[in-house]
């Protein structure tokens, strides 16, 4: 197969591309600025203060500052202290390297303030090169976890910009290569020879599952950790939450719980017996016969019913707003096996089947596909079922006359 191009209308593509660039640039800028102030500066301060000089100081004022915020009051640690360096007296008000960022929790700040009553002699750390710079607490603090908050924004911004730039480059390349289509469309270009390679029959072949339970488990762990990590930042950041804040967080917490449930489900699915499928030919033409052999790795005693189904699907991927969606439509379905109970063919067996004569061969382009696959479904009571799909190749007719 020769060159393959992916096309969408030019004006729409350009305006969407420009809009997306601005959108992702805003994300990147907001993420980068916030990350600099919430993460880089505090961590830099902690690292630099490691070599600052321990110096006695006297607390001259100590209180929890209260500030008006959009979602209720926020609080800060307001401690002033004085110290002497080289016969000169200095005054400073920095407690730690997150000073200046107010948040909604009062109790934790009150505890800190209580440790530094007015008149107490404490220890502060002074920059020997700039005695005006001092800090009471030069350690890493829990509040520095706020520095992780901008990371999703940075990731969305960087990932989105890479995607937009790649799409734009591909569109320019297509414009040069297909003027007729470019007159009405802009597009991305890719060299796709995968169909040709798959159409060669190289004899018996073991089919690969579309997704494995282990990968699904890792994905669910990642998604659940990310979601619940972000939600917990908001959940545990302050101590005095109003009813509105609590109510607002409920759906987010429920989604987090559902994600944990999904992760547990995927974990349990990892211990299911796994089917190994082998076809007598790596590709089969319409009208051709092929033998399918299956064998389960692990005990199949828990499987009460096994269904093996031959399917052909149309797959169409499209972009709506910022979401990419794939629709699937089954246009052929044939049950190859339906066994229940303790029948021996559940653990292993074989079946011969044919591909209909007047059907479509496998096809794959960037956004569209015709996929032939074998669906294995094993019913297991009180545990996740075995559900796996194994794509295989239907090649064009050997003689299409």
């Amino acid at each position, binding site marked *: 197969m*020769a060159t393959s191009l992916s096309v969408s209308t030019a004006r729409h593509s350009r305006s969407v591309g420009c809009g997306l660039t601005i959108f992702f640039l805003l994300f990147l800028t907001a993420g980068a600025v916030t990350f600099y102030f919430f993460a880089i500066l505090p961590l830099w301060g902690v690292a630099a203060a490691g070599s600052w000089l321990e110096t006695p100081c006297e607390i001259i004022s100590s209180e929890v500052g209260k500030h008006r915020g959009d979602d209720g009051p926020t609080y800060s640690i307001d401690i002033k202290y004085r110290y002497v360096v080289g016969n000169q007296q200095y005054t400073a008000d920095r407690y730690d390297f997150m000073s200046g960022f107010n948040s909604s929790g009062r109790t934790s700040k009150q505890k800190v303030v209580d440790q530094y009553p007015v008149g107490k002699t404490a220890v502060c750390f002074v920059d020997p090169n700039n005695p005006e710079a001092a800090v009471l607490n030069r350690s890493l603090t829990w509040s520095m976890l706020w520095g992780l908050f901008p990371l999703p924004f940075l990731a969305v911004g960087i990932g989105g910009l890479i995607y937009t730039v790649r799409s734009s480059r591909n569109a320019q390349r297509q414009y040069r290569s297909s003027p007729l289509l470019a007159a009405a469309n802009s597009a991305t270009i890719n060299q796709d020879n995968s169909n040709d390679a798959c159409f060669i029959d190289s004899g018996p072949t073991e089919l690969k599952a579309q997704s494995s339970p282990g990968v699904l488990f890792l994905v669910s762990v990642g998604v659940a950790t990310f979601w619940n990590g972000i939600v917990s930042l908001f959940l545990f950041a302050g101590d005095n939450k109003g009813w509105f804040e609590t109510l607002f967080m409920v759906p987010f917490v429920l989604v987090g719980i559902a994600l944990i449930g999904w992760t547990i489900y995927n974990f349990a699915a990892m211990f299911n017996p796994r089917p190994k499928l082998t076809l007598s030919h790596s590709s089969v033409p319409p009208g051709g016969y092929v033998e399918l052999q299956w064998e389960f790795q692990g005990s199949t005693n828990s499987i009460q019913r096994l269904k093996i189904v031959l399917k052909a699907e149309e797959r169409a991927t499209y972009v709506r707003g910022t979401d990419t969606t794939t629709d699937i439509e089954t246009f052929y379905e044939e049950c190859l096996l339906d066994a229940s109970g303790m029948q021996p063919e559940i653990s292993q067996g074989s079946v011969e089947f044919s591909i209909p004569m*007047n059907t479509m061969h496998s096809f794959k382009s960037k956004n*569209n596909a015709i996929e032939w696959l074998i669906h294995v479904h094993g019913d297991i009571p009180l545990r996740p079922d075995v559900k796996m799909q194994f794509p295989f190749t239907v090649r064009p007719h050997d003689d299409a006359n």
Partner: protein
Amino acid sequence: MMQIELGNQLAFLPGETIDVEVSWQLPEPPVLVELRCVWNTSGKGTRDVGVEATIPLEYPNAFENRRVTLTLPGHPYSFSGKLLSIIWALELVALPSEESTRTEIIIGPGAAEVVVSGQNGRQDVGA
């Protein structure tokens, strides 16, 4: 003006060799004229296009008729489904002006498009 003539036949077998009459009348001689055999998808998914064959027609005059012999690709078949259609076409393009014309054809088994209904187990072959 540019034209692609295929006679009365617009449906062909995969891999079939066909004769194509192409003609053009342009204000000035183009640098190059290309006859391309392309497919594109249409339907719910973002459109994909494949350029399967490009035949350069060199040293073109401003007014000209030429006969081109072309072997059609073996796949993908012309296809019509519920979400996706695959459409074949011949394109004649003058460069650098990019003036062009396009004629849609069918490439499939029995010189017919493969049609599926989108319902389980049902599918037909239609011309």
